[in-house]
């Protein structure tokens, strides 16, 4: 087994600072947290949405409504002969029709996950608008999708992995695999 080279992109502190800055940006550009809802994409985006909601509450005294979507049933890559992904939960505790939604994910890569999330949200209703917030934009888009709010742009090779750990001793790391994808 060849070794994987790993380099730090954000420390745990820097990650928390990035979340606070993203919260501030949300308020500056979208208004108070009662004017939008956060929807995290399971699993990384769900954790990030929760931490963003904490940061918004600390900043503004109001907590936004938070939901999450598991996009597994909407993926375009289910038939690869690999084992099927474990299904997660979708919970949208608000009327989707007419809502202003900030879709939240930890890493933006090909854009396919975001496309799948759009499809799922549309099956729940017709949102007034959707903005996209990501902690890390690592490039290599395969669809015309761009984030409205970005914590950090990271330059990567296609075969690299970006690992996000929201824990107290976590952070964001870039893993360079010796060969192959993911």
């Amino acid at each position, binding site marked *: 087994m060849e070794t994987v080279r790993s380099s730090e992109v954000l420390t745990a502190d820097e990650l928390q600072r990035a979340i606070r800055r993203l919260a501030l940006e949300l308020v500056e550009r979208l208004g108070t947290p009662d004017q939008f809802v956060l929807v995290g994409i399971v699993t990384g985006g769900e954790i990030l949405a929760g931490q963003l909601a904490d940061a918004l509450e600390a900043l503004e005294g109001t907590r936004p409504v938070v939901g999450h979507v*598991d996009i597994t*049933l*909407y*993926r*375009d*890559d*289910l*038939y*690869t*002969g*690999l*084992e*099927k992904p*474990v*299904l*997660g*939960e*979708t919970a949208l505790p608000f009327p989707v029709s007419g809502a202003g939604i900030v879709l939240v994910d930890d*890493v*933006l*890569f*090909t*854009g*396919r*996950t975001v496309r799948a999330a759009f*499809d*799922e949200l549309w*099956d*729940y*209703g017709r949102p007034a608008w959707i903005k996209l917030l990501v902690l890390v934009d*690592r490039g*290599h888009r*395969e669809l015309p999708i761009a984030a409205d709010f970005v914590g950090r742009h990271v330059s990567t090779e296609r075969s690299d992995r970006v690992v996000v750990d929201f824990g107290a001793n976590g952070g964001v790391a870039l893993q360079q695999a010796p060969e192959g*994808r*993911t």
Partner: protein
Amino acid sequence: MSDSTARVARRKDMLGLRGVSREEITQILDTAAQIRRVNRRRVKKVPTLRGRTVVSAFFENSTRTRMSFDLAAKRLSADVLGFSAGSSSTKKGETLMDTARNIDAWRPDCLIIRHPSAGAPHMLAKAFDWSVINAGDGIHEHPTQALLDMLTMRDHLGTLEGRTVAIVGDVLHSRVARSNIFGLTTMGAKVVVAGPGTMCPPTLEALGVEVRHRIDEVLEDAHVVMMLRVQRERLGKAVMTEVAEYARLYGLDLDRLQRARPDVLVMHPGPINRGVEMTPDVADGERSVVLEQVSNGLAVRMALLYLLLGEDGGDGDRG
């Protein structure tokens, strides 16, 4: 939800629960518990199996199982077609293999089959590369019924480990009972069966169950009482005690139910012969979970279609 991180190898077919591991049963039940949320939405459909073709071939009459499979495939966006015994060309003398070769020529992705002969689904699963789901083969197995029963039990009991399930009726000739026995014992439940000697012979103990002959002997400790349907169409007169006699000795009424745990679950695979296996006040009573079984049947079949169907080109990238 419960933890199903245990990685389970992908299988092509679901032919029966004999030999299926605890991890895999857990994975199917966990998947069903998530996927059933789709059925409560306004848009009760996900694009997961778009472009896939599911054929249901019912060589025995069935209403609810066939409808449940059809709906499961449709809720996942698959295209569904099929036939039931009455309209089938087997009436014109076509062999099962010939029917299957014809279906194969349309390049299906999955065949759901119910057949009076035990082993018919297994034969097709070996001969063709599409997935086969056994919807009941003779008196052998009916795995999706057992899976929906186990999901219903797990919803109420939290776990199947250490729980006692009583199965009452014609256990010997019941594919529902056999699949449940295989699944439940794998999951660590204790299975006790009761019925007339001709329907519940002591030889059943080889399957890892306890055999009793009076229903009262199994009621007291049971967390679940599963009443099997009296299959009049499957039985010769020699085996069958009079229906009224059966109802008196093995039917579940409110009096008998008093002897069970207050939180006992009453289950029945349907369709119920009211007044035979159970009285209407039990069938419609507060301990009955019969309609939950029907809902969970849809969920389990969606989960299996999701887990079984697969394999073509496509790109594995995420992000």
